[in-house]
């Protein structure tokens, strides 16, 4: 049986569009120092480090080695993981397994990205198969736009339904000092924003941010000594699917369904609206916040707009989603999935400041990337 593991500290930079004042290593240090401070630990307390980003965004090979000047990994074990957009989730899992294995007591996971240093679309287009897909690959937005177009046609949902998700996440971000975009918007603002790829508009999409996040995992022996209210990891899962974009079944989101059911099952969750107190979901587009709800067992097929319009997922609703502002407000890709885990942990630890949801005992974080890989983590205030 594995070692029970909890998150005991979270640190992140104030995410923004261009950090010209620091290089990548220095950006990482900010998040690391804040995480150590949050957990009242020093670097010597960290037994191992895992780091991740998307290489082509910064063009640095062997990032784990290079990061030593920023991550504190000097004479420590460090390794690198990367899985595209879901990298943050992968990092969280990696940190967790380091500790759950029983081989390390305190492990830090670091996600970072300096999107401003490259041409995101040029870099991300290289994720498609060079021989079959690359020449006409439209980037991340195409498939999601098509997904919502199909959903609207099938269920009579509207662009305004997606706009409500955008408004919720953007407005939540105003209370998050670390978020990148922090401006109050309305549905009208979203509808008027430039169309990117029908029906997805600018305010329906995520920004490119420079930022870093560090999350500290600790074993059951150490966690209670480090913090009064650790966020215990109850379940983490990911699932993969086909790797050619044309093969994926967009109408059913199979990876979301597989991952979510795995993680609910492992954590004993049957009705998330009741069993989960807060969710930090990786929604790269507002439309995902509509379409994916049914695959996460929140409602029946096509019913999500009703719940959204009723405010079920707002801060004062039954199940607040993205109190941090989510991906629509902040997106340093290598860090984004880890920020979801970190924010969910802060909610459990009671350290989410103005964005704190009251009485959080169970929180969920998801990460999403490339060809529909879906990661999910369930955290609780009690030991598993």
């Amino acid at each position, binding site marked *: 049986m594995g070692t029970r593991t909890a998150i005991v500290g979270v640190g992140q930079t104030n995410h923004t569009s261009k950090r010209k004042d620091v*290089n990548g290593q220095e950006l990482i240090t900010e998040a690391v120092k804040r995480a150590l401070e949050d957990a009242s630990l020093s670097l010597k307390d960290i037994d191992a480090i895992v780091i991740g980003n998307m290489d082509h965004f910064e063009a640095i*090979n*062997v990032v784990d080695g*290079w990061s030593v000047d920023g991550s504190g990994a000097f*004479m420590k*074990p460090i390794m690198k993981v990367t899985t*595209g957009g879901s990298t943050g989730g992968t990092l969280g899992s990696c940190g967790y*397994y380091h500790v759950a294995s029983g081989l390390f007591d305190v492990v830090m996971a670091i996600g970072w990205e300096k999107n401003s240093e490259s041409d995101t679309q040029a870099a991300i287009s290289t994720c498609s198969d060079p021989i079959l897909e690359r020449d006409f690959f439209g980037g991340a937005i195409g498939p999601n736009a098509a997904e919502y177009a199909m959903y609207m046609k099938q269920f009579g949902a509207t662009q305004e339904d997606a706009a409500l998700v955008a408004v919720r996440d953007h407005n939540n971000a105003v209370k998050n000092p670390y978020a990148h975009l922090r401006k109050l918007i309305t549905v009208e603002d979203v509808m008027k924003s430039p169309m990117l790829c029908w029906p997805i508009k600018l305010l329906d999409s995520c920004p490119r941010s420079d930022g870093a996040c560090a999350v500290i995992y600790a074993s059951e022996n150490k966690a209670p000594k480090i913090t009064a209210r650790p966020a215990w990891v109850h379940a983490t899962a990911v699932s993969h699917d086909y790797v050619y974009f044309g093969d994926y079944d967009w109408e059913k989101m199979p990876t979301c369904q597989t991952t979510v059911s795995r993680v609910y099952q492992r954590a004993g969750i049957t009705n998330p609206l009741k069993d989960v107190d807060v969710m930090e979901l990786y929604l790269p587009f507002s439309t995902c916040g509509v379409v994916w709800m049914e695959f996460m067992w929140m409602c029946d097929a096509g019913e999500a707009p009703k719940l959204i319009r009723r405010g079920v997922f707002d801060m004062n609703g039954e199940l607040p989603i993205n109190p941090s502002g989510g991906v629509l407000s902040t997106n340093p890709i290598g860090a984004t999935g880890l920020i979801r885990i970190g924010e969910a942990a802060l909610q459990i630890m009671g350290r989410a400041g103005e964005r704190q949801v009251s009485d959080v005992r169970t929180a969920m974080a998801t990460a999403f990337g490339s060809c529909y890989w879906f990661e999910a983590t369930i955290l609780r205030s009690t030991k598993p």
Partner: protein
Amino acid sequence: MERIAVVGVGQTKYERGKTKNFAELVYEVTRKALDDAGMEPGDIDNVVTTTNDFFDGRTIACMAVAEAAGSYGRDATNVEGDGTLSAFYGLMRTLSGVYHTTMVTTHCKVSEGSPRKIFNQAFDPIYDRLLGMDAISSSALQARAYMHRYGITEEQCAKVSVKNHGNARNNPYAHVALDITVEDVMKSPMLADPIKRLDTSPISDGACAIILATEEKAKKAAKKPVWIRGVAHCTDAYRLGERDLTHSLALETAAKKAYRMAGIADPLREIDVAEVYDAFSYMELMWYEGLGFCGQGEGGRLIDGGETQMGGKLPVNPSGGVLSAHSVQVAGLARIAEAVLQLRGEAGRRQVPGAKMALAHGVTGICAQTHCVWVLSN
């Protein structure tokens, strides 16, 4: 540490200019590892793939191989770094209680890109990337510093090349098997002194996969399990000028930890066979010291004494090592695979008779900044 075993291994032949694509290479070794273990894809509950966005020529490079590695519908993850690190992550996942049978894959087609330019990308873009160094020129700085400090000679390094290229003749997977002499090495073209052509590793394409299993699952495997006794990794400073290039402190730290886990006090006596990451001939001598096979600065003396030859006290790189086949990131996992074959008695003509305890070693980064050490036994 709970008992976890390696129950299956698979390697491709290492060679330049392979026409199979990444998915096909990974499929080849995944299938081989499954067959070796007597398992089917359904027996695997999670996958760790290894990729490098630069060598693979695509961002989110794991997408290219995920299906071939058996990730469909499964919990899968991806490491960027040497295969010894991916395997370590696989080990941790298997120890966590969540998974019981883990597939770990690595692949690289070094010949497809420009390896020198790709290696140059590991240097800091803010500072010394513009110097245009690659693996050879940077390692030469280390080689020279090490040899100068301890009086290690180019001939002693050449002996490593002679030994390993010669050993490779017994390894059907090896890329460059040669029957050469120290004189041949000394006469080969000087690339960056003191490193000559025959002191360097080849540009190899290939793949390797292993399957890890809990003791319970290992019982059902086709062959006798090989147990993992200790694993550790450690990373040195990033900038060359901040490191003592003559002393692989990171290796020493990792080795000590792995030995402690495995209960090894005297590696030269207690280890029967070692597969180490000799990207350059001088490195093997340095790794003897870091691994505690001899004292600081005595690597040359150890090879002179013949202990690390086939038939010696502690044969090193019976497979031919990395000098004979260097598929980046694959080579570390291949060292583990070779150690497994040795411990099973399946190493054919490169078998070290009666091997009971084996060591496998991998590196990553400039001048081997990161080391990962594995101790296995049967």
